[in-house]
């Protein structure tokens, strides 16, 4: 089965967990949102952990053409398209191809990538992805590298590098921070540092309340949802630093 799947992937199909024809929470306006299988992070608070494994025989394999076919009448209703995951950029060749097709056929649609920022987007192999993507939505899980490793099993050096790189290119729509009550994961430090980076720009900051829904049982134990007070405090800190749009979700 797995061998068959890998062959399919080599013929330019991607594992698509689900597609929302209409989404109002994955960037500006009404967007088609595509969620890919596979993630190189293992976030403790991941609310759809079934999308983490790189191979999942349960999910649908789709070609660029399959997705373009769906856009037939649908494109009239959309501001754009957002790819997410799992970690979308692991499918960068597929996405580059998809975005190229979309830009050719529906130039009014904007193409967004929701990413954990783990792959160095300044590398040459991402050139087409960078050229076809209008904006990125970047998750910064934690500023402190120990906290980041503890939360995701991975380092955050590249994430921060991508943050700078994408800010310079004016390619960020929003930065997202999941906020926990446990300060050991450094939510406040993360919000402060991200805010310093994106202040006085039009980049939005989305503060996401950690919710236990969908989270793996064994992980839930050590995570605590933030208080309203904490969310508001972090929002105020960020606004004071000079971030133009802060949203609590």
């Amino acid at each position, binding site marked *: 089965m797995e061998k068959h799947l890998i062959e399919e992937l080599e013929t330019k199909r991607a594992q698509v967990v689900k597609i929302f024809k209409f989404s*109002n*929470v994955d960037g*500006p*306006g009404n967007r088609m949102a595509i969620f890919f299988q596979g993630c190189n992070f293992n976030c403790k608070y991941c609310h759809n952990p079934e999308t983490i494994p790189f191979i999942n025989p349960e999910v649908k394999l789709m070609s660029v053409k399959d997705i373009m076919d769906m856009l037939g*009448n*649908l494109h*009239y*209703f959309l501001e754009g398209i957002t790819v997410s995951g799992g970690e979308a950029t692991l499918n960068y060749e597929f996405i580059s191809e998809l975005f190229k097709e979309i830009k050719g056929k529906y130039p009014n649609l904007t193409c967004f990538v929701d990413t954990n920022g783990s792959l160095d987007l300044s590398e040459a192999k991402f050139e087409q992805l960078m050229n076809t993507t209008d904006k990125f939505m970047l998750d910064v899980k934690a500023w402190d590298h120990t906290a980041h490793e503890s939360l995701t099993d991975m380092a955050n050096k590249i994430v921060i590098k991508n943050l700078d790189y994408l800010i310079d290119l004016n390619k960020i729509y929003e930065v997202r921070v999941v906020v926990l009550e446990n300060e050991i994961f450094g939510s406040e430090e993360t919000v402060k540092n991200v805010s310093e980076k994106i202040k006085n720009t039009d980049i939005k900051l989305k503060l996401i309340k950690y919710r236990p829904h969908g989270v793996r049982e064994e992980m839930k134990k050590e995570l605590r949802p933030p208080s309203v007070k904490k969310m508001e405090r972090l929002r105020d800190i960020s606004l004071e630093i000079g971030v133009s749009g802060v*949203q609590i979700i």
Partner: protein
Amino acid sequence: MNKALEIVTSNKMTFEQKVINLARYAESTIDVLEKSDRIKEYLENGIVCDLFEGNAPYRPRYILPDYEKFMKTGSKFLELEPATNIFEATNNLLIFYKHVPSITTMPVYLGNIDYLLEPYVKNEDEAYLAIKLFLKHIDATITDSFCHANIGPKDTKAGRIILRVMRELQLPTPNLTLKYDETTSDELAVQAISTGLITAKPSFADNRKFEKDFKGDYGIVSCYNGLKVGGGANTLVRIRLRKLSLQAKSIEHFFETVLPEVSEEVLKYIDLRSKFIVEESNFFESNFLCTEGFLAKEKFTGLFGIVGLAECVNNLLKAEKQEDKFGYSAIANELGIRVVSAIEAYIKGHKTPYAGEFFDNTHLFHSQVGIETDEEESPGCRIPVGQEPEIFDHIIQSAPFHKYFPSGVGDIFVFDETYKRNPEAILNIIKGAFKTDLRFFSYYCTDCDVVRITGYLVKRSEMEKLDRGQIVLRDTEALGKGSRDNGKALDRRVRN
């Protein structure tokens, strides 16, 4: 108890509601329309319904005075001169509205109020105060939310003030529609949507489609009815299609016998009612709206309504499973189109002196939103509440029906509060819907107090007062409560 005495002594009606009900009762004691035996039978068994319009219609059902003309000329009968400032302008309109009858006795159309007031907006603070008083006055005195105002398509200062005031007041009356086209700024459209997510209005009408159908000026009135400005509709008679379908032995029998027979009777009955208004009631001869040229007889028509298309189709196909039903199966949807195009052909083929020359002497087709006593008859061509598919599929399914109904059709979509953070997403949806042939789009938000029942607006909190046996200001609140309880009108699928 004697009916009149029952009305007089009721503890559930306001004084105004008693007076109106006594008038209705008086009208019901005379019998002047020479109905055929066949239509009497249809009316009795409920296949045809004239919406309790009364036995002796003495004013058209829907009236759309030419308010632009009024603003220019004033009125001799009302001894009103044209306004010179915003307070005179709103005051003149408020006076005029009290003299515009309709089936509810109150006006169902208030004009394109942004365009009417824009010339008088000199100082925005002053205009804000005048418009706030104006809208509050309308809600408290026109106590029936079939009353409808229009704005747009172009962005105006008055239009923005109207939206702002509506967000603040959160009142059901007047209903509001934004005439939307490519000249409407995205900014105004997004403001309109944000307003709608707070207070369930405005709806969006595709201005280009309505302008084409009505050769220029038109108004959206009552629930969502497109009609000609300076005219209106004399009457509305409707068929309950589910009930009708039960009389058919087969699909062929339905199309060959059942449907043509009832359609012919309905058209004759619309003529009969219109004839009385036009030839006997003296409305067009004596009412100042006509003698001063705010209305013209030739711009009036009659409305042929339908409800229960979904249930009719499901019955004819004996569809049990969701995938075989109207809204899902291509066969069922096509049968729905076959039903409406057959009725449209009967309507267009029926030339009558009782529909105005403007309409080429034909009546108009109307997808009626239903009334609180309908049983298992979904509004017009809508998919039954609770069975709605995903919003994209829903719009694609319903779009082909819209071209048949210049005088009113539309769905209501309920959005969750996440849309308040991204109203632009709803604008994208509306733009797409109009590109795929929809002509009208309504919506509200799950957490609104003001909600859209079938087309008109009601406050949930007022329906709750009725639940507790208290008297309420607006007659539509009782209708809303009926539709909420009998028609599941507030159980629509939430889009999130």
